[in-house]
């Protein structure tokens, strides 16, 4: 549980962080809340030789609403999402999902940018941003680009983000529509064994921990669009997926959970 040796740099701005990343190449890693990266380092699953700490970039901690959209700075902590009155108004789903991440200590350290960049298929907020049809703003040496959440995640802990890019902002449309989030786990602090996010009254449905990325449940969305009942739409939730097999759940049980939880989420979101 002791990490390998590393050097540590404090970034003074996003530009500075990106130039440090460029300088150190793929041996460097950004450090935000550290609640995914540090555990991996302690298990020596990650051994970056340089950490670039962006955790002090307070100008990237904000929640701004207006023009039908919510813009959230990448360094905004989960607990800030959880307790923001503005977010509760503009995008109650995101605030509510943030409140279900880990435990209070985790939520006070973990950041929205960090959890998106980490691209863990078992994480809650990436799936919520996916269901909400969000956009990720990434800054690199050549400037900023916007990436649709649907295009962002590419595999286990992998995304389209380049080594020298940093997430600076996450945007979601204002108003969650009929929404619900079902998180199934065994202990309060744990990741979801399976999770289901429903936004926009069923127009956006995503699944947590049912494959190598947060997954947009397009089959469910299509069934609903075609007039299917919540129960019938939920029945296809796991179709074509290859969910992981672990100590908590094998693939068969996960698929079952996905169907049960999708139906519950749809019903709670007002879809009959």
């Amino acid at each position, binding site marked *: 549980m*002791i990490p390998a040796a590393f050097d540590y740099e404090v970034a003074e701005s996003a530009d500075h962080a990106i130039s440090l990343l460029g300088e150190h190449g793929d041996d460097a890693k950004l450090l935000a809340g550290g609640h995914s990266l540090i555990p991996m380092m302690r298990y020596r699953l990650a051994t970056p030789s340089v950490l670039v700490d962006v955790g002090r970039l307070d100008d990237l901690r904000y929640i701004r609403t207006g023009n039908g959209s919510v813009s959230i700075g990448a360094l905004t902590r989960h607990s800030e999402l959880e307790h923001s009155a503005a977010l509760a108004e503009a995008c109650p789903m995101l605030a509510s999902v943030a409140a279900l991440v880990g435990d209070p200590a985790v939520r006070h350290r973990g950041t929205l940018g960090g959890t998106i960049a980490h691209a863990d298929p078992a994480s809650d907020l990436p799936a919520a941003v996916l269901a909400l049809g969000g956009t990720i703003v990434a800054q690199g040496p050549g400037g900023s680009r916007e990436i649709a959440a649907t295009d962002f995640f590419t595999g286990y802990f992998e995304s389209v983000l380049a080594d020298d890019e940093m997430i600076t902002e996450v945007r979601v449309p204002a108003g969650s529509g009929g929404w619900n989030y079902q998180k199934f786990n065994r202990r309060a602090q*744990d990741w979801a064994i399976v999770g289901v996010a429903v936004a926009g009254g069923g127009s956006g449905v995503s699944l947590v921990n049912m494959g190598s990325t947060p997954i947009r449940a397009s089959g469910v969305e299509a069934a609903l669009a075609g007039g299917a009942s919540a129960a019938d739409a939920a029945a296809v939730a796991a179709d074509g997926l290859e969910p992981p097999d672990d100590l908590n759940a094998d693939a068969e049980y996960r698929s079952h959970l996905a169907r049960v939880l999708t139906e519950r989420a749809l019903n709670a979101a007002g879809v009959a």
Partner: protein
Amino acid sequence: MTITEDAPAGHVGSRRLRKEDPALLTGEAKFIDDLALPGAIWVGVVRSTEAHANIVGIDGSAALEIDGVNEVLSGEDLAPLWGEGALPCAWPVTPDMKNPAHLPVARGTAKYVGDAVAVVLADSRYAAADGAAAVVVDYEPLPAVVEIEDAVADGAPLVHADLDSNECYTWGLWGDNAPAIDAAFAEAAHVVSERYLQQRLIPAPMEPRGCAAVPSPAGGELTLYSATQIPHILKVMTAVVLGIPENKLRVVAPSVGGGFGCKLNVYAEEILCSALAMQRGAPVRWTEGRAEAAVSTIQGRGQVQHIELAADADGKVTAVRVKLLADMGAYLQLVTPGVPLLGGFLYHGCYDIPNYMFECTSVFTNRTPTDAYRGAGRPEATYAVERAMDSLAVSVGVSPEEIRARNFIGADAFPYESAAGLVFDSGDYQTVLDKAVALADVDGRRAEAAQRRASGSSKRIGVGFSSYVEMCGLAPSRVLASLDYGAGGWEAATVRISPTCKVQVVTGSTPHGQGHETCWSMIVADQLGVDPDDVEVLHSDTAVSPTGLDTYGSRSLAVGGTAVYMATEKVIDKARAIAAHQLEASEDDLEFSGGVFRVRGTPEAEVPLAGIAFAAFTAHDLPDGMEPNLEAHVTYDPPNFTFPNGTHIAVVEVDTDTGDVDLIDYVAVDDCGVQINPLVVEGQVHGGILQGAAQALYEDAVYNSDGQLVSANLGDYLVPSAAEAPRFRLDSHATPSPTNPMGVKGVGEAGTIAAAPAVINAVVDALRDLGVTDVDMPASPQTVWRAIADAQGGAS
């Protein structure tokens, strides 16, 4: 006899806040890793990644290139430190028990994942960790024995090639009773025959292990600091294993962050650091990592249980027959083989069952050694009998509380001699159960459960009972002798009164979270009429408390607390003699209360204890021949065990769509005898229940078929947190133990012993009408969902 709930007259019985807590909560308390030892050599242990393999080569060259790494040593390199000296097992339960030499660092063959195969010596803990990670070990894998039943299968690979089987010992308890037992089964109207699995558990105390051995080069002495429950036992054992004269060895347990039995041991790292420190003349230390602890510290449980009950038509049990397979792991640690025996006397539970048969075969596997874990044998026994009693209730067609009522040992039957050969001290099991039934509103819950069933709800309610009795207060030394245990079961205490009438209590019982300082102070304060804050309790350092047998088996209060009580009585006797001398009265005419000696009938003739203390110190005017000072030492060997008991009731809600189990209510009515501090008792019961519920619902040391521990971190090994804790609703019903003067019994393990069967009985109760008759522990959502699906005829 029962104690009524009158407000306590003195401190005993009051909810006094713990003395220990301010230091713990402010971080002032010092744990092993807090010790500053300049110049210490840090040890990193290279652990086998194979369950069973020949060690072909150890290449430390990469490690030695790391800054701060100084040496890489194999088991062979270290051999001169201990020769053939092996880690001790103090409990040879049978004369022919197999006890393969367990070297601190393996030579030739690694026998479990986590087995030490080499060590790195470094300048810092970080360098030691880097070095250990960089050592390359070349293994030649051998076939591994992983599961208990596979160890005794025909043609099983051998864990120890020089033995002819994997059997460690077979131990039985039935005397000449076998024909009567066979007859009872032949004549029975109901026979219940069940097989239960006790999964392996990882103890996971808040603080992992650690030790530091500090030589004193001038005197040739060694001080061993260790996060241990047993400094006294560790001292003797270290002296014996390494041939260090006992008078040159001191063992200190600093603040210790929990143990639950896993620090009741003599570990390789303690021997290793001690031997190296003597050899190098420098401090040598090691701190265990959390993931390391999962494989390098003993694990608990690990049994396959077969239990059979024979009963007459009314459900009165006439015989119990138990066959156990117990997993020792690869080697025997300090009391590994004895753990199943501690349960072996209790498979009849709190029931009056005339015919008793217990047999245990223990086996070696290629896994981390097992040993005592909170309850040690008794949770396993209670689980088997309490699950089986529920099955019997179904067979007879009566409620769980009725089957228990028909079989309880009666309140008038004490002292009760059990068929297993114990003499139970006191109890009123039926009253305890009745209290629990009322508190849990069992009728109301059942009505709710019926209504949920009728409405087709997927949220089922289940009510589960567990009535338990345990043997605590380990132990009468002669009984331990009859069980071939290698030590006695007494405890020592010294009580001193200083010139200014402050009190020093030295206890041989070693706390690591229980609250000894608080409770011992309250006992002594009441006896002497002083304030508990004027009582200082010293412990956990063999230089300060040279005599003791430490803390395990819920023995602290019943044995160690009794020693303190008796030593205080002895001090009072001496003070009385001085008071009589001063007051020119006969000792028989003196009464002592509230810290003052008075001559009966002459109220103005009195002298306070403070006056006596000062007089004993100046020694100017003591009775002829009396030694100065007020001090007494007592070593107390208990005449019997104590037998705490209780009934716990768990209420669960099971989601039949997902298999999720929610523990919605938990009632515990315990008889731990007289309570010194109900706040401390409740803390023990809360933690104990959650630890038992953890076995029922969450925790599982999962090994794959290669013998790799798959649940090796706290993300995969699910220790529950406060968020998972049920609502605890506690009550008590004390029948004071006649075994000791305070009437105390012990409560350290009660919750853990009772909880698992209560929870599983509740889960099965919730699902019985769906055809579910058993659910393996831990009853994870997936396991419960599959049990329902299987009972309904295949997966849905």
